[in-house]
């Protein structure tokens, strides 16, 4: 029997990246909108008292290891979700030639930015 030729050949590492994609998509779906609403819009336009984002308050908040652990998952996992979607989106939009390089660049960026996030959060303690 002749196997139909796949346009996209599966790599052994696919399940690994796909798991991070799914975890990141779930974190982004449940947790991200409220952060954009409060810290991206409500506080900057003045819908909240100035004290809500005061330096001392935020400083105290980030001292908690639980808050930093939460921020690690909040920031890192959606980066892998981005990497996965962006990679295939660029392919769909016509970037077929550099597919391997594209995958390395996207997932690599997520890995590097995760390392940066860890560094920032460890120093914040």
């Amino acid at each position, binding site marked *: 029997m002749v196997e139909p*030729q796949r*346009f996209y050949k599966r790599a052994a590492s696919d399940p690994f990246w796909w798991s991070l994609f799914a975890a990141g*998509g*779930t974190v*982004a*779906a*449940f*947790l*991200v*909108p*409220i*952060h*954009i*609403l*409060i*810290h*991206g*819009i409500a*506080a*900057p*336009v003045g819908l*909240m008292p100035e004290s*809500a*984002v005061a*330096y001392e*308050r*935020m*400083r105290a*908040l*980030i001292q908690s290891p639980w808050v930093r652990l939460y*921020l690690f998952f*909040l*920031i890192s996992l*959606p*980066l892998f*979700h*981005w990497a*996965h*979607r*962006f990679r*295939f*989106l660029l392919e*769909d*939009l*016509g970037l077929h030639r550099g597919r391997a390089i594209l995958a390395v660049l996207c997932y690599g960026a997520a890995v590097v*930015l995760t390392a*940066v*996030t860890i560094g*920032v*959060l460890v*120093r*914040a303690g």
Partner: protein
Amino acid sequence: MSAAHRPQPTPVYHRALPASWWLTNRHYFLYVVRELTALFIALFLLLYLYGIVQLERGPEAYAAFLRLVRSPGVILFDVVALLLAVYHTVTWFTLTPRLQKLLPAGREAPPGAVLTGSLVAWLILSALIGWGLLRG
């Protein structure tokens, strides 16, 4: 059969697609928008991370960060990012029940119930996080 006599794989014909294929149809367009939500979410989180960096650098750096997020351009970005993030949330919850193909037939939860349940859980979680960020 030696390798030299192995039949060549049949060449596959790929129809050339114009770069604007995603603008030709509402579903294609919404697909691209859905995929782009991830980019805006990631950019917002990097801005968030930058805020943490500025917080560590001290009160002056943090004040500069607050001025940055109060600028009209950044607020406009955040409004777009929020709309796209909510679009991601709804499409993600619509997608989840489709993963139930792994369950035996007849054991799947109805997609409508999964969507409603997820939305309720999302609102409760958002309220809890909002309370955590703003209490005191």
